[in-house]
């Protein structure tokens, strides 16, 4: 089992979005960009997703390894608003090798900061819960 937490200043994300045109496409997937841009305070949603990506990497304990990109951690929202984590590429393969059953994520944001926490549940532990 692994746990990760991260906090991000909203102003920093706002600054990066306005100054560097590639920031969004390097860090976020097309689905994440569409979702956040559809929200009233999009910078808060981008910041929350960035914090979520960091917390997932911390919980997995591997950081952005060789060949792993920011977009390999995708944070999606269900219709109910509950976020879920979708891993891609090399990162997904590493998670499979680490026997990750699922990753639970939670985040929150206000005018100044966004926070996120991720919990990695391994297959063995998940079986224990089910029993």
């Amino acid at each position, binding site marked *: 089992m692994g746990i990760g937490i991260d906090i991000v200043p909203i102003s920093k994300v706002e600054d990066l979005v306005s*100054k560097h045109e590639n920031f969004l496409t390097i860090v976020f997937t097309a689905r994440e960009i569409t979702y956040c841009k559809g929200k009233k305070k999009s910078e808060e949603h981008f910041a929350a997703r960035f914090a979520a990506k960091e917390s997932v990497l911390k919980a997995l304990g*591997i950081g952005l390894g060789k060949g792993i*990109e920011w977009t390999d951690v995708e944070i999606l929202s269900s219709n109910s608003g509950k976020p879920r984590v979708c891993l891609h590429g090399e990162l997904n393969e590493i998670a499979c090798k680490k026997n990750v059953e699922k990753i639970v994520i939670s985040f929150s944001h206000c005018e100044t900061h966004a926070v996120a926490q991720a919990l990695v549940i391994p297959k063995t532990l998940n079986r224990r819960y089910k029993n």
Partner: protein
Amino acid sequence: MEKEEIFEVVKEGLVEVLGVDEDNVTMDSSFYDDLGAESLDMLDLFFRIEKETNIRISRSEVQKVLQGDLSEEEFFDENGIVTPAGLEHVQKLLPDSNLTEIAEELDQLKLFSLFTVRHLVDIVGDKASKSRNE
């Protein structure tokens, strides 16, 4: 592009991104421990370097320097701690540091705290010379 020029670009970027005094930025400054940079600051710095040099740097490339040719499985054990083989590689990058003292707790986060300005200057320098030769 010479290493001295790249260092000036990195230093200028760090002064703008972190608001640090330029006298505090040396080749041996570590981004996290000495300068207090967070991951968003590093992204900001990488974008600024790209604007000045046309060379794109990713965090993945930073990891490549720290990890060498070892795979994730060879570099980290099941608890996310750097393996003896990984430690040997990192020690070569930092010959003046005694890593054995922190070996048991050298995880991903601590590993990034060892990344210095010199490592970044080397990455940019290597990419610059490769693009010149292409």
